[in-house]
């Protein structure tokens, strides 16, 4: 398949707007209609400021919101990914404009000229079909098609390439087929770091931004909107601010208002007229409301004469569905009102509610407007419509003498609806704030909130209650109350549509930090990172200076052929076996007992004959029995905490420490760290290998290390911000703790310079990863290691691909065995990971059983590294719990809990003995601000754990902050079984 895509190089772009001008020429767009333009963004505070130029335009999303909402099928997507607009079908409803998160749609109603009168070139290229319809960038599809027809390569031959790309004087814009791995754009995405804008909206944009270099594939370093940061936070950014949508005005709002009132009113009227035929007139009035709303829309759209096209796409567009429902509703409702057939009345009431739902869904699908697209808009719009209808209904029946006696009952119904509407409104606001809406959206809504509370809630309730008490005066009170309810709802929608409809702006802040950091560290002399070979280069070609740049710490070794690795491993393993056998009595004994000798080792498969090493072997030889070198050669000793027995001790020679630093530096580079990055190392320093392991690795790479260790989380937040750390090293649970403390301190770490998190030392789920990435605004990378083997740095994910952790096979041999039969398993099978050290001097480990359950892949990785990939370790078999016969890993529980609506990502599993059986209680904690039903939440969690893991457990819902926070390694499982005995 082909997918045409644009790549913009942020390090090249100078913001000159030549592409803007060229696009205006090529596509003869009207003044100020800029299908392509370049943003000029400034971020930071003086004197630490960065300014960056970011080309924007239609992103030709693989999943384009504009196409989904288009009621007419005018917006379509070609098989090559280009999103097109058929100007002959478009009715100019502007739904695509509010659905597009990239501000890429333009609705031009009438000709505009550069000067008062049209110039000859404007006359020559005038296209009346473009008026009253939504225009957008086509990726110059006419050029692309021309090229393909004539055998030219789009993106390579200028005749087949979009005008903006052709014109770019900095070579910042590139166009090509991202599905072709050999294309220019694929190469750029491979060679550089990249991100896409608003990728969290899952639109899969075909517009990529690259900067820096990365020996990995396209990375999705997507960021949530920066809107929240724009006012009042430590970072100022200019040029990306959200703006109020201009396309849906009071007329569009009128449709939502009239449609809501009309459908709500009709529903009540239809049901009531089952018994009270005299209400038919009110029903007709309700129809009138709906019709009025639709008429207002007709006034607003660009091509009213084509409005019938609105029916073309009910399979996707809620606007088309609204039209279809309306088309069915009017005859049906008319017939029902006329005939008063009960069944028809009920059916038409249901259709009225459906109409209301369709209107709610229209807003929900507007992905470009944060205040509209959240799920809470659905109940809000429906509840508002129904409440408005009820208000008007109440006001009406209170004036009808025949129905007045019943008004009290309906007043009660109205009370319920008004309360419901109020609760939903509040929930909507809370959810909106939590999701990070534009500050100005929130400001508008907050400004309206007390008014709504007074007129929409307090006043009608008071009036009705007084009416219920003072029955003789009830009628006017009910009328007033009903009108208040309706008016408040109408104003709410008016504000929501016309004043709170800010788009989300453009979101790039974090990348500003990244780009700036990258530029600042360019060509720091003496760095190992950027090596150059340009002495005596002969001139003549375009670039005289040949430079080799890579994000690998040791490219030669990291991209070694598999055969080469096997040969290296064989040689090194032989030496290791010899050394172990010769110098460590424990191994000699075990080898002898197993009847193997190092001499018998010829090739790697022979390793299966050698005995395993277990954690207990280390304890049995406590403290120094496993050392293979004299004590004077030991430079450092690490040890486990020993809480479950004797500590396991590990020694290191000078060579071991150097290798360790090399491997950890390799991991840092693999994770996307580059020399000059500021590494905030929150791994514990001390006997635990994490702190010092990461420390020396980062220093080896040429990073600035902040050796902060664990604990003192508030201070950590301050240091992270003040020192502008770009890389965070911590256990994942502690990273979450940092995020939470920062939030309490009012610091938004999403806006910090943090770019990469190197997390390890405890199992963590993908859900946890997503959560950390969201909260800290960084890319979370998994690093693996065990102190028995070396410490952190045994394996690491590559920044670009993140499909498994590269295990450094030049220093370790990785095997997978069946934990039951202890037999080796083939590549790709799931089993227990067994590691043999190949270069460890002080303490070689032969076939150490890690207890980690995983699988390996030797398939080539897109990052270019050849070393085997260990799938992410999410559980260890000694972590495994057996609950009522079911194998449960804590990580499985975590996967259920992290991201669970209403829950904070903190939990503990408490094991107790329930008679003869082990029982599991999962303690969870409510998310800040959650005010819902705790017991309901517990039931939900129980249900999810049962359905996803297959085990029944107890769930205790704790209040915010009650679960102990990680200060390093998180305590996820509390075993109280022994105490119970």
């Amino acid at each position, binding site marked *: 398949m082909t997918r045409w895509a644009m790549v913009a190089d942020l*390090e090249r772009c*100078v*913001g*000159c*707007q*030549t592409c803007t*001008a*060229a696009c*205006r*020429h*090529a596509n*003869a767009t009207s*003044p100020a209609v*800029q299908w392509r333009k370049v*943003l000029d963004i*400034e971020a930071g*505070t*003086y*004197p630490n*400021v960065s*300014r*960056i*130029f970011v080309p924007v335009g239609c992103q030709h999303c693989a999943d384009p919101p504009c196409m989904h909402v288009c009621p007419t099928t005018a917006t379509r997507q070609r098989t090559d990914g280009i999103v097109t607009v058929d100007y002959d079908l478009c009715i100019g409803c502007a739904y695509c404009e509010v659905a597009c998160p990239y501000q890429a749609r333009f609705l031009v109603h009438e000709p505009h000229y*550069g*000067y008062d*009168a049209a*110039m000859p*070139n*404007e006359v*020559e*290229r005038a296209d009346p079909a473009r008026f009253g319809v939504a225009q957008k960038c086509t990726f110059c599809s*006419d*050029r692309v098609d021309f090229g393909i*027809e004539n055998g030219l390569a789009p993106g390579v031959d*200028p*005749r087949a390439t979009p*005008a903006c790309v*052709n*014109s*770019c*004087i*900095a*070579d*910042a814009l590139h166009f090509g087929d991202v599905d072709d791995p050999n294309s220019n754009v694929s190469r750029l995405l491979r060679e550089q770091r990249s991100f896409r804008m608003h990728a969290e909206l899952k639109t899969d944009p075909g517009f990529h931004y690259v900067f820096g270099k990365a020996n990995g594939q396209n990375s999705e370093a997507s960021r949530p909107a920066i809107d929240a940061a724009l006012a009042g936070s430590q970072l*100022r950014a*200019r*040029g990306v601010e959200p703006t109020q949508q201009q396309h849906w005005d009071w007329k569009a709002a009128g449709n939502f208002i009239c449609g809501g009132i009309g459908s709500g009113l009709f529903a009540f009227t239809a049901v009531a007229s089952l018994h009270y035929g005299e209400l038919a007139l009110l029903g007709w009035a309700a129809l009138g409301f709906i019709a009025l709303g639709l008429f207002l829309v007709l006034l607003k759209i660009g091509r009213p004469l084509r409005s019938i096209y609105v029916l073309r796409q009910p399979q996707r567009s809620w606007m088309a569905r609204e039209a279809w429902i309306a088309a069915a509703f009017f005859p049906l409702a008319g017939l029902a009102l006329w005939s008063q057939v009960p069944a028809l009345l009920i059916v038409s009431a249901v259709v009225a509610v459906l109409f209301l739902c369709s209107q709610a869904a229209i807003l929900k699908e507007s992905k470009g407007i944060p205040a509209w697209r959240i799920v809470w808009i659905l109940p809000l719009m429906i509840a508002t419509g129904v409440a408005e209808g009820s208000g008007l209904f109440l006001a009406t029946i209170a004036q009808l003498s025949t129905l007045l006696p019943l008004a009290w009952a309906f007043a009660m119904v109205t009370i319920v609806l008004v309360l419901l509407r109020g609760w939903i409104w509040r929930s909507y606001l809370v959810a909106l704030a939590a999701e990070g809406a534009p500050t100005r959206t929130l400001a508008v809504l907050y400004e309206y909130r007390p008014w709504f509370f007074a007129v929409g809630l307090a006043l009608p309730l008071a009036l009705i209650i007084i009416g219920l008490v003072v029955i003789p005066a009830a009628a006017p009170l009910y009328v007033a109350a009903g009108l208040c309810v309706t008016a408040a709802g109408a104003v709410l929608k008016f504000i929501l549509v016309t004043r709170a409809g800010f788009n989300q702006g453009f979101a790039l802040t974090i990348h500003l930090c990244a780009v700036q950091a990258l530029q*600042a560290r*360019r*060509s720091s*002399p003496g760095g190992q990172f950027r090596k150059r070979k340009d*002495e*005596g*280069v*002969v*001139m*003549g070609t375009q670039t*005289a*200076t040949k*430079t080799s740049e890579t994000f690998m710490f040791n490219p030669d070794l990291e991209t070694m052929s598999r055969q080469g690795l096997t040969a290296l491993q064989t040689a090194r393993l032989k030496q290791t076996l010899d050394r172990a056998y010769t110098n460590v009595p424990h191994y000699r004994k075990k080898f002898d007992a197993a009847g193997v000798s190092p001499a018998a080792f010829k090739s790697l498969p022979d390793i299966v004959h050698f005995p395993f090493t277990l954690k207990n072997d280390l304890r049995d030889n406590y403290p120094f029995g496993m050392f293979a070198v004299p004590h004077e050669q030991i430079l450092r000793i690490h040890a486990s905490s020993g809480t479950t027995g004797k500590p396991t001790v590990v020694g290191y020679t000078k060579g071991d420490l150097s290798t360790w630093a090399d491997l950890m530096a390799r991991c840092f580079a693999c994770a996307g760290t580059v020399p000059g990055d500021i590494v905030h190392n929150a791994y514990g320093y001390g006997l635990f290998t994490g702190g010092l392991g990461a420390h020396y690795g980062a220093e080896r790479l040429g990073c600035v290390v902040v050796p902060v260790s664990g604990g003192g989380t508030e201070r950590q937040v301050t240091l992270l911000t003040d020192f502008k750390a770009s890389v965070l090293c911590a256990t994942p649970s502690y990273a979450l703790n940092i995020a939470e403390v920062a939030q309490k301190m009012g610091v938004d770490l999403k806006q910090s310079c943090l770019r990469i998190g190197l997390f390890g030392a405890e199992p963590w789920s993908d859900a946890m990863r997503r959560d950390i990435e969201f909260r800290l605004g960084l890319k979370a990378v998994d690093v693996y290691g065990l102190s028995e083997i070396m410490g952190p740095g045994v394996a690491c994910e590559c920044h670009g691909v993140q499909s498994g952790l590269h295990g450094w096979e030049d220093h370790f041999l990785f095997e997978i065995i069946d934990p039951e039969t202890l037999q080796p398993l083939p590549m790709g099978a799931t089993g227990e990971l067994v590691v043999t050290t190949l270069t460890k001097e002080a303490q070689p480990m032969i076939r150490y059983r890690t207890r980690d359950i995983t699988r390996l892949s030797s398939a080539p990785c897109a990052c270019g590294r050849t070393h085997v990939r260990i799938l992410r370790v999410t559980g260890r078999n000694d972590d495994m719990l057996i609950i009522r016969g079911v194998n449960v890993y804590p990580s499985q529980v975590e996967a259920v809990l992290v991201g669970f609506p209403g829950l904070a990502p903190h939990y503990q599993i408490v094991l107790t003995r329930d008679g003869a059986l082990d029982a599991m209680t999962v303690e969870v904690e409510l998310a800040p601000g959650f005010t819902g039903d705790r017991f309901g939440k517990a039931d939900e969690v129980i249900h999810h754990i049962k359905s996803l893991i297959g085990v029944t457990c107890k769930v205790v819902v704790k209040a915010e902050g009650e679960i102990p926070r990680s200060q390093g390694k998180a305590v996820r499982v509390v075993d109280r079984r022994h105490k119970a005995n």
Partner: protein
Amino acid sequence: MPSQPPHNERVVSTYCYQCVAGPDLLKVRVEDGIATEVTPNFDAATIHPAGGKACVKAFGLVQKAYNPNRILYPMKRTNPNKGRGDDPGFVRISWEEALSLVADKLNAVRAAGLTDETGYPRVAASFGGGGTPTAYMGTLPAFLAAWGPIDMSFGSGQGVKCYHSEHLYGELWHRGFTVSPDTPLCEYLVSFGANVEASGGVCGVKRHADARKRGMKRVQIEPHLSVTGACSAEWIPIKPKTDSAFLFAMIHVFLHEYPRDRLDLPFLKHRTSSPYLVGPNGLFMRDSSTRKPLVMDGPTGRAVPFDTAGIDPKLEGSFVVDGVEAGPDNEIISHHAVTVSPAFVHLVAHVKEHAPEWAEPICDVPAATIRRIANEFLDHARVGGTIQIEGVTLPLRPVSISLGKTVNNGWGGYECCWARTLIGCLVGALEVPGSTLGTTVRLNRPADNRWSSVKPGPDGFMQYPMNPTSKSEWISRPPVRSAHRTLVPLVADSAWSQALGPTHLAWMMQSEDFDKLPVASPPDVWFVYRTNPAISFWDTKAIGNAMAKFPFIVCFAYTRDETNHMADVLLPDCTDLEGLQLLRIGGTKYVEQFWDYQGFALRAPAVPPQGEAKDFTWIATELAYRTGLIEAYNSSINRGAAGVRLSGKNYDFSLAPEKKHDVETIWDASCRAASAEITDGAESQGLTWFHEHGFRVKPFPRLQWYLYPKLVQEGLRFEQPYQEQLYRVGKELGRRLHEQGINWWDKQLDEYQPLPKWHDLNTLWEVALAKHFSVCIADYPFWLITARSMQYSWGGNVGIQLIKEVADNVAGHGNVVMNHAAAERLGITDGELVEVRSPLNDTKGRVILCEGIRPDTLLMIGQFDHWATPFAKDFHAPSMNALVPMLLDLTDATGSSADLVKVKITRLETAA
């Protein structure tokens, strides 16, 4: 490109030369005879350093042709009163009437004498910046050459807004009228406010983008975060006009904090004057008989002439020698057994006090930062490294320093240019691959080739054509109103010199007399083309008043504007897409314009002229014919006044001198001569060929990008670090001026120092403003600076809607850019309307608050304040030009001053 041409469609090759960073070769799509689209010219992809791309300004050309505000017919003034408030009452006239009007006036002038009673030319002309108008004015230069003396000193920006010190000193030291890093090879660039991303054109932008991706580190040092700062690895917000302190501190670090062997000692010894011994009077110690400067040969321990073969001159030490010093006016001072030291020793002592700690409070930049930049520079210099260029081994020194405007003009320009060039010399990074290069030669001849312009001069340096200062030759009676040759020896006497000299003096002389200079009369006839000094010069009010007194102004007019508001005749000429002209391209030229090719490009008419606009060649020919100069005019064209000499070895396409030739004939001959020049006479294709192909080139040797090999070939040295020649010239000039009784230039004379003294320029500015306007300068707390805009600069396109539209996407255009925190202290909010007032005048505009500017600085991009230019007059954009006074106190020895003034800011209303 649509699959089917919809109708009559063709593509025309032409060029855009709206700024000195051009030409950009481009193509124009013409549909049904109407230009609709500008595209790059990918035919030039391989020969053009930026792949045949065209800059954003070129995309304004279609609107430039069809702008309804164009003047499409000749017009004459009916209201004799000239002034901003007077409606000129222009009425349409025929070309015949217009040309007769002008020719009659010219003929009357000729009859009265080409110069007036004061000796100043009766005819004056002003053209836009950087010589760009010559790319459009066809054969007008031939007419001007045929005419005789013309006063071109009425500045329209030149002198005060150009890279003035660089033009003069750059040309003196390394044939660098304009200076550029060797961007394709450079790895570390310290840029003091050079805004290459805005002013470097497509070649600059492309090359710097490539360099960034390659890993070149650029440190941008300037008071605000420009687009160039944005694209740099680091931004250092320096206090305005303190760059020389930063540079001096860098020199201090190199000379006082590093072992000598980190410097390029062979370069210093053999390619500079560092080892020249300096006598007690600050002049070179010379051999008594040959008068050659002496150096101390290390191995023999003897003082020998600098060009003695096989010597190893010493850079340091003090020695007892015999010899003479050659003083001003050929005075010889003999010395016997006098103790002297090499120039290098004087240099070391000169910067001793200028440690980074000294510079820190001056620049408001931490000493550690200055030191770090110096260290990084040295680390990247790769002293000792080499590279092969076209088979020749040259030093590779991939470090450079570039200087922006305001750094480069007015007081301080000498220090900055000297320091920049000297730092290059210290590490051997001058005119070698990767280092600082000159790109254009203008004042030395021949002006089309840097290598050919290198001629051996005295003392082992290149010959430089100083204006004479000897008693017998000094030009005491200025030939033009700026007195450039009288006051500024360094400005030389090329066709460009007039535009460089103290151009504001020409304006100032219109309202004040300069003691002992002839009283300056207004010119009888003033031609104006592609320039608008009433907006683009300083003290625009005074300029406007001065030109209102000119009796007869002929403006070649595009639209109405603030200068042609005073005109007597408006002549509409073809715009860029309408006219015909052949232009020399390639070689090494201007900013970043060094190519691997050289040749010619044709500006072919893409569309017919709108209205009655005429091709400039036609206008020039008519003027020549009607003034009886047709023979001289044609001869001038034959000699190359239209860009190419029409005859050469093996070919002769000369025009018959006595005939009035039509436009096509003239350019066909030029095209044939160009073809012949490129092919050494083998081919002679004319206009038709160029119409078809657009351009024609031949390779240009990359070796010629670098002057170093030529100097080695000629056995010459760079005239650094010690400015003995300037010192002597200054002394002589002082004597001449004093002999004439001129004392008002004494402050400028003080600048002729062998090693430039550092000046506290902030104080200099404040004192001059306070003194001249009798104000308390503390009331003006902000420095106001300006910055270039790629979209507008030089283009004469302020009235183009598309340009305005896209420029508005770039922050700061049309606003007063101000630091957020500084504004907060004054209660000023974003978007608020403010008045910015200098001691001279005020301007109004809306504030844009940002973080990327120093709290003590305000910025106004570009030059606006239009009140007559259609479209632009509705911008309500502020401009600093009205606020900057023309003051002798703020004029340096080269006759230049800097875009800098102190201002206060006042709120006018709360923003809507």
